[in-house]
């Protein structure tokens, strides 16, 4: 099985402003990985490069062994930015069905799709919202729908940009539980967040990004609790 993510010497600058500088990282097995760093460190830019939204950059990157320049690299990959947006007149179930159809392999039966939808509805508390139009959803409900759309079909790698923003405490808990179960089924989650306490609860690996460079990698966060993330984060990014 090919590595979910391989990034080789990726650099990106916007004009004179260098955002990423020779970034290399790889995830060899399905895992729950956090990308940490202060604002402007280049976390979102790296995600956007991986998802093909920024086509010109230096270096190479692969998703499941396929070069990201090829759209098929995103076949089993989902990305949720800090705000999920869709056309306001579509209902929750119409939006989900669109994503489910695109992300499900042809051999998926209607029953399988229905079953998966029920699981995601249960996991993200979307019950009773099927016929509600997108424009009438709250920010939190939109995020939950975005999550459901992210995990539908045969998705095996999910990139989440600030996934806890806009979610209530129960939503955060639901998401955490779902990410753990997704990982147990062989899925990889690569996320960035500033809520370190939450990341400590379920992520197994963390990369620290500073001034566009990976400055540290911590493995087995949960087990090595004697060095909490907050302590490492403060020592790396302290403003003093």
């Amino acid at each position, binding site marked *: 099985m090919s590595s979910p993510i391989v990034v080789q010497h990726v650099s990106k600058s*916007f004009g004179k402003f260098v955002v990423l500088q020779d970034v290399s990282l790889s995830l060899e097995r399905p895992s729950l990985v956090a990308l940490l760093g202060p604002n402007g460190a280049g976390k*979102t*830019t790296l995600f*956007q*490069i991986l*998802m*093909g*939204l*920024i*086509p*010109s950059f230096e270096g190479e990157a692969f998703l499941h062994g396929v070069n990201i320049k090829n*759209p*098929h*690299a*995103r*076949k089993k*990959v*989902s*990305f949720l*930015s800090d705000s999920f*947006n*869709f*056309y306001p*007149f*579509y209902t929750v179930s119409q939006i989900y069905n*669109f994503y489910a*159809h*695109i992300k499900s392999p042809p051999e998926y039966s209607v029953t399988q799709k229905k079953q998966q939808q029920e699981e995601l509805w249960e996991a993200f508390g979307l019950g009773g919202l099927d016929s509600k139009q997108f424009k009438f959803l709250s920010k939190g409900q939109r995020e939950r729908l975005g999550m459901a759309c992210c995990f539908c079909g045969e998705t095996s790698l999910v990139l989440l940009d600030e996934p806890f923003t806009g979610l209530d405490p129960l939503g955060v808990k639901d998401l955490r539980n779902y990410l753990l179960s997704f990982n147990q089924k062989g899925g990889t989650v690569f996320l960035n967040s500033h809520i370190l306490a939450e990341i400590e609860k379920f992520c197994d690996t963390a990369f620290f990004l500073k001034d566009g460079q990976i400055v540290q990698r911590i493995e087995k966060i949960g087990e090595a609790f004697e060095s909490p993330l907050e302590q490492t984060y403060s020592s790396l990014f302290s403003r003093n």
Partner: protein
Amino acid sequence: MRYIVFLIKTHFLHEFRSKKIIFLSIFSALYLFLTYKLGYQIENFSSQYNGKELLGLDVNFIGLIYFGGIYFTSFFLCTLSSVSSLKEDLENKMSSQFLLLPYPRWHYLLGKFLGTWFLTLIFFALFFILGAVFSLFPTISVTTLLLLFFNSVLIFPPVILACFLLSSYMPSLWSLILYFFIRLTGLAIAGSVEYSTYISTPFSYKKIVFLFFPPDFALFSNSPFMKNINEFIEKNRPESIPSISNLSVNIHLALLSVLLFAVLCLLFQRRSFGR
């Protein structure tokens, strides 16, 4: 395929909620009613006064007025819809949402283009058929009517693509103003210069204007290039196929559409949707 169909459907649903299509539909319906009434008055006058023409108008002229009206209304719908379609998606970040899916970027552009084109076609076809139902084209044969329709619908793709190009780099209103300005300049140039001289010019501003913003198809018929194509088609045409006088123009428009689509895809491919 489902992806492109979804984009087409979305464009329809979005446009049906917009005020412009309601306004243009009411305008066209009113226009249909008025031309029908005028045609009725002309016929009535003619039968009462032994074939004398009312204000020098005969019934054939009504068909021309009506066709011109719905053609330009459809043209306005086409431009208004095109300048907002891609622009709105870029502004509310729906483009990025779609580009995350495992399809090449040109699929997205194709979906947006077909959505705009089909909407214009349906609008145009609806009022074209209504004109035929209300007998506004009394002396024109069905074949000629179909050819007239076919010739007209091929005008829209380059218009849509040119508007896509402009609107993806500037505000919708400015792109609309600029499009009409360049189009009118193109028409003025086409009307004022000998087309054969123009076509022999190796490279000029005029040529670029002409290439990207086609004038109405009648102006193209005079070019030697088009005449050659027409002659070639006429010589090799099987007898079963009726003569298509504007086929060369249609070929030109189709080639122009392909060229504009390729340019749009190339620019879109290099565009960053990150920041």
